[in-house]
């Protein structure tokens, strides 16, 4: 049987139409640029899992914001994809996780995280060899003294914080109480961040420059089983100022409870810490807010005036009562990687590193970091990084220094 010509015409038209329709539907999908992968390596198991989870929430929120705002314009609106790696509970595991990250995901253009300085030191040994940029809020000065090209420290380093925090705190104390503190006690754990913070005080000239006498110098290995012997030394010496430097919530609880027990708590002894452990929401799960009232901490980043919108959204999606430096820094790191990709114009890790080194921004991603300007020195230190001071006031740790961006005024504990 021969089919009429009009049948072939119709069939050909049908196939052609179908082809065009298919092309119309799918071409935009094919035109959508591939997602650009960035990594987040944080502890998600072990004792620091909680902090890692908070950092992950901050990074995920940033990725959501970046993608809903059109992705990376320089790459045709390519979305960013976050790949998360568990740094575990030890330096060795953190290093193994970093090795897995660079081996399994060669397409990564940058990474962030690591949490403990000791973890970050190990992770960056691996990322440096893989030419992968690593942004971190870790404080240790060692991070940027090894001649690495691919490490970017966005917070003020430990040495910078302690050198600059001490005169600021002493001035505040003098203004509030009328007397400048003359004696200081240091009770610290031996983690890299705490060691970096006290190095200029113990080994440098910070004590002499500030006319301070060091009356207690106690170092412990976390976790503490009992804080009695440490606080007993403080009680015996009666210093004017206590630098209390635990890096875990459990040690913070033990130390502050013991201070209360010995009659040194609740503002009787001005107490300054370093890092986010002393501003962690978990503290309220483990001790009453009254024991924390007035305690201060020097940090690299914290919620500041002008960030209320992000803070509220973060609180809603995470269920956290406030945004700590961990969440905020990872939020900012994702935006910095986005800025670097915009500058680089190509999804290539070496180009991203180069862009980060050349970066000098004072808006956008820069607003998530104290100092509101992001540019890096050749060693990876953020040039304009500033320290912040937070203080527990009415059950919440709020930023109290510098005045320009502080949420509240500092209240120096009255003895």
């Amino acid at each position, binding site marked *: 049987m021969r089919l009429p010509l009009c049948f072939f015409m119709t069939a050909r038209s049908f196939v052609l139409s179908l082809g065009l329709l298919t092309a119309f539907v799918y071409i935009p999908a094919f035109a959508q640029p591939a997602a650009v992968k960035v990594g987040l390596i944080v502890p998600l198991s072990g*004792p620091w899992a909680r902090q890692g989870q908070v950092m992950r929430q901050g990074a995920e929120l940033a990725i959501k914001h970046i993608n809903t705002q059109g992705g990376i314009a320089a790459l045709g609106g390519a979305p960013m994809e976050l790949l998360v790696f568990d740094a575990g509970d030890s330096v060795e595991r953190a290093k193994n996780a970093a090795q897995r990250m660079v081996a399994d995901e060669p397409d990564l253009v940058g990474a962030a995280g690591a949490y403990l300085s000791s973890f970050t030191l190990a992770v960056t040994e691996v990322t440096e060899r893989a030419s992968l940029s690593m942004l971190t809020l870790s404080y240790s000065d060692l991070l940027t003294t090894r001649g690495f090209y691919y490490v970017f420290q966005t917070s003020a380093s430990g040495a910078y914080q302690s050198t600059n925090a001490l005169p600021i705190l002493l001035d505040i104390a003098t203004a509030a109480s009328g007397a400048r503190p003359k004696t200081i006690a240091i009770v610290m754990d031996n983690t890299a961040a705490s060691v970096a913070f006290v190095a200029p005080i113990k080994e440098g000239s910070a004590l002499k420059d500030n006319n301070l006498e060091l009356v207690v110098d106690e170092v412990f290995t976390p976790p503490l089983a009992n804080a009695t012997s440490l606080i007993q030394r403080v009680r*015996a010496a009666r210093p004017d100022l206590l630098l209390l430097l635990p890096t875990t919530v459990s040690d913070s609880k033990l130390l502050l409870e013991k201070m209360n027990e*010995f009659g040194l708590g609740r503002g009787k002894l001005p107490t300054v810490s370093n890092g986010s452990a002393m501003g962690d929401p978990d503290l309220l799960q483990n001790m009453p807010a009254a024991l924390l009232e007035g305690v201060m901490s020097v940090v690299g980043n914290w919620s500041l005036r002008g960030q209320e919108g992000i803070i509220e959204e973060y609180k809603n999606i995470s269920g956290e009562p406030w945004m700590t430096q961990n969440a905020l820094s990872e939020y900012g790191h994702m935006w910095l990687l986005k800025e670097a990709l915009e500058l680089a114009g190509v999804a290539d890790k070496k180009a991203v590193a180069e862009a980060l080194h050349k970066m000098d921004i004072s808006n956008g991603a820069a607003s998530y970091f104290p100092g509101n300007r992001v540019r890096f020195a050749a060693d990876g230190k953020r040039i304009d990084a500033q320290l912040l001071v937070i203080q527990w006031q009415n059950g919440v740790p709020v930023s109290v220094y510098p005045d320009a961006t502080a949420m509240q005024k500092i209240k120096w504990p009255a003895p």
Partner: protein
Amino acid sequence: MDVVQYIENFLQSFAAGILTGVIYGLMCVGLTVIFGVMRVINFAQGEFMMLGMYFTYFMFSWLGGYPFFDGLYFPFVLALLAGPVLFGVGNLVHRGLLQKVTGQNASRLEGGGHYAQLVLTFGLALVLQNGGLWLFGSTLVSVPSELSYSAWEMGPLYQDRIIIFINQNQSIAALLALAVVLVFARYMARSRLGKSLRAAADNPEAAVYMGIDVSRAHRIAFGFGVGITAIGGGLLASNAPFQPYIGTDYVIIMYAGVVMGGLGSIRGAFLGGLSIGILQQVSASFLPNQLQNTMIFTCFLLTILLRPQGLFGLRERVA
């Protein structure tokens, strides 16, 4: 530092050492019961302690808001209740898992079942840690209690100086721990069940001929060991914040205490744990704080060197 101040520091550390050490001692007793009767090195002991902590925490969170259950001393009642509950859990774990690699079944396995036991208990520890992370989350928690930051003041003991603070929560916990150890030791020494457990420990074959169900004895011993350590965990739950990995911090202390005291000896394990607590705290009054654990393990190595059977491990076994 003058002599009076030195004495105050020492007494304060010594008091803290006793309070810490008694809880360690209780945990060590749990571990030694399992080793003494079953000859099993239980790497998951720290995780059973963690379960005792979470039991106390969740029960207090659940009931603590109700009248009658909101008292200052209710967490201690819950800590004691963790014992029987975890006894049941230990029983089930033995029935489902450990029984396959211990007792008569062990003789069929390579190395007398020791390799399988080590791998099994180590695996169990990992499962409990990660299962705990999944179930309870990673948030550090503790049982809220005013007593954990309150102290009784002793003194001044000399002129206007030497005032010693005794933590109220730790003191009550230590007294309860001591009571549990004494009751348990007496029960093991006097009761029929205690005697059968000791018989199964001393000579399993002879015990079988005497009509003792050795497998049942092992099951009960494992339950006792787990339950006692869980009570220790419950008593710690107000002072020490915890997460599912907390067991790792304590299991080494438990083993050091048990070996120092003498494997398989209740009295030895308790005194071993107590010694470790005192050493840990007192050493900090004359050595840098970082050397606390060094001091513990130096004494531990000295004990192994000079008295390999442990301080009290000569004649006694589970008695």
